[in-house]
């Protein structure tokens, strides 16, 4: 049994330690906001936070996550009023929406590091998150809007 904390709740899973966190979340724990897109850290659809940092859950072996605190989009604090989620809704970013949970988790991490990123900084940090529908212009706009919202709240 491997024990970890997901969205504040202690969970136990009986899987091999090499199993990626992504598949533990999806198939063992039924938490589906982290998406399988590529399996090799090329698309970012599986992005979650481990101890506050954005990571690709397809590359995190569950054995190494043991004892750590994992937060998926479902477990974000203040979810109904989260400035990034609100900005994503107001700017109607999603088309198919499959990559967006990963984009959002990456964007939250970005704003934690750089409160008011410019386009260049957004490009740098968000380029690991692929969107096949081409929502990039709206992602940029939503990140700027969320940054403004967060600053105003402070």
């Amino acid at each position, binding site marked *: 049994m491997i024990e970890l904390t997901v969205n504040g709740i202690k969970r136990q899973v009986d899987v091999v330690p090499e199993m990626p966190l992504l598949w533990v979340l999806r198939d063992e724990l039924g938490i589906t906001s982290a998406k399988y897109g590529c399996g090799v850290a090329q698309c970012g659809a599986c992005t979650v936070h481990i101890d506050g940092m954005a990571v690709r859950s397809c590359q995190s072996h569950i054995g190494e996550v043991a004892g750590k605190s994992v937060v998926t989009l479902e477990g974000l604090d203040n979810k109904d009023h989260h400035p990034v989620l609100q900005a994503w809704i107001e700017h109607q970013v999603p088309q*198919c929406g*499959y990559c967006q949970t990963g984009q959002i988790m990456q964007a939250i991490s970005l704003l934690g590091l750089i409160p008011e990123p410019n386009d260049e900084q957004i490009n740098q940090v968000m380029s690991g998150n692929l969107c096949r529908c081409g929502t990039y212009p709206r992602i940029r706009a939503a990140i700027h809007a969320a940054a403004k919202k967060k600053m105003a709240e402070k």
Partner: protein
Amino acid sequence: MGHMQTLSRRAFVVGSAAIAGGIAFGAYASAEAATSASDNPLAAGLGANSVTFNPWVEISPDKITLIAQHADIGQGVGSVQPIMIAEEMDLDPGQFEIRFAAPSPAYFNTGFADEFAPFVAADQSPAAEEARAKTLEWLRESGLQMTGGSSTIPDTYQKLRVAGAIARETLKAAAAKRSGVAVADLRTQSGHVILPNGSKIAYVALAAEASKIPPVLDAQPRDPSKWRMLGKPMMRLDVRSKVMGELKFGIDMKTEGMLYASVKLNPNKGQPLKSYDASKAQSMPGVRKILEIKNGVAVIATNSWYAMKAVDAIACEWAPSAYPAEQADHWKVLESSFKPEFLGKEWRKIGDIEAGLKTGKLVEAEYRAPYVGHQPLEPLNGIGLVTDKGMEIWVGHQSPRFVQWVAATAIGLKPEQITFHNQWTGGSFGHRLEYENVRVLAEIANQMKGTPIKLVFSREEDFLQDIPRQIAIARHRGSVDKSRIVAADLQLASTTPLKGLLERSGTPSKDPDGQLAAGLWNVYYDIPNFRATSYEAQGLSPSTTWRSVGASTSGFFTESFIDELIHAAGLDPMKARIAMCTVPHYRKVLETVAEMSDWKGPLGNGRGRGVAFVESFGTPTAEVVEVTATDRGIRIDKVWVAADVGKVVDPVNFESQVQGGVVWGLGHAINCELTYAKGAVQQTNYNHHEAMRIYQCPVIEVRGLENDPKVRGIGEPPVPPAAPALANAIFAATGKRIREMPFNKFIDFV
């Protein structure tokens, strides 16, 4: 299966000679057409005290359900289609549930009538309209239920608003009967019929009574000036649940007692498995069973990852490919396909092409476009359960009735024994018109009778099995004399995406592939001598429809070549196109993009602008791309787009679709190709086939025009002009003419 035979028997493209008179054109715009489609499939599952007025509206005592006729592949079907009904019914978001359409001929796609009839879109002569009406009747008879061809709005704009109007007026009639108040004195608001004294009756409370009176079939949709939601910026109904991570895609679905499957299939597409060694896989964690299927092996395990790992450890020997094993030989086949025996069709001929080519200065150029993958971010998947009665299948797919046929054929059932549940999808771009996952899932579930099986393709497997976009070469010749284009002879050799798809759907066609005409024959410039000819290359990789289909390659070829002719004539690319454009409201599209971009000719200082104009799926679309040649390569700075769709029904999503189409068109033109080696594609993940990431994405400014007499789609039309506008911009900035995709083989990009 009746509709399959109908499809095969009839010519897919209706020849003009076969058109008989007497068909009133525009019939599909009538209220009758919206309701006279065969039996209403909602009637069968209707509960007590419930009512359905047509295949799109169902009201029970506790809820209202609106049917999204098409598959949602990210284009917003699950929002705009129900809202078109809700607009007429005076329902607000939140007052109804949405369900995807079940397989039924009632949901035949009227939107294909224009695309399949052998007339260019701008031709709205009586003969063209008659051919379209005839094609519509064929679509009705065949019951072709398919999402594609940018038909989300064109197919449903009229029929869903009529369906909503019928529901509204019938509910009013039921309320009139109950209350004794005349219908004329009733109105509707927010899911209620309102009586003159201000009291309200909820629609759900009228369901039982409404079921006992005849529906009001002559109800008319409202004039757009009365719209509450449509035509104005509105919130897509699926945005919140997608942002909150609550929406379940097909890959997120789960059922009781389910096991997980992953597959390894012969990468020589269409060929069987010869032998395999699963000794290593057998003892791996979580493995329950190893199955042999027609073209590969499957592992059944307790989760997807165990299944993927184990299937990866199986050594397989494959039957070799029927197409050339090496990419260079694919190109050789294309090169030798410009011969009479491979003629698809001479689509259009104006003037005297040979004499025209001998006048003035001759310009010749060859262009190439490679195989490209679809690769939506949600890989192919599905859940299947086979029992003694038949098969139930949960999968996101664009052709529900063909899914039934493919699954049934794979395991010896009848199509009506397949119960299909459509799912939200993480994109498609044409991928979910094909059937790899459906066929394989049916085979696996059939061997695992009684156990629900969830199949998920690994990304690598998805790449290997992805039937690519057509590969094509164009050999164009033209001439210019005295500052004008005298002749253009456009010749194309290509694989056949639509023919291939139809064949795999069980409805083979012997007609020339109409998608090879797209972007080739629908050229709206005043060129006195013009010819457009397609050749169909034989024996190459299967290919299929990819966002914008034929126009995705021919749009690039044609609009690059027109640019070359314009430059040879010493003209300005924008002014020349505007001056040559023969359709007044198409000219307006070009004038609009010129105004938006403030086009004033060459920019200088390593900067350049290119323009391209392509009509696809009836939507004339003009784009200007601006680039800067930096010391690190070409940087795409900005794109302006103007498109005329007759009516912009959902303005926010319209802009999203255009931006997404531009990103799709540019990204693949710059970065992507699939190449074969030893019969398999060499690109197996996004690092080999990247398209556009955010750092390359330009600012994209969009304007929708509403001058076209018909309501048109926008999912695909922004794609074809993107690549040629970029190539033309690179030429303007650097003097280098790129005639082959992907462009990054010839020039660096920032």
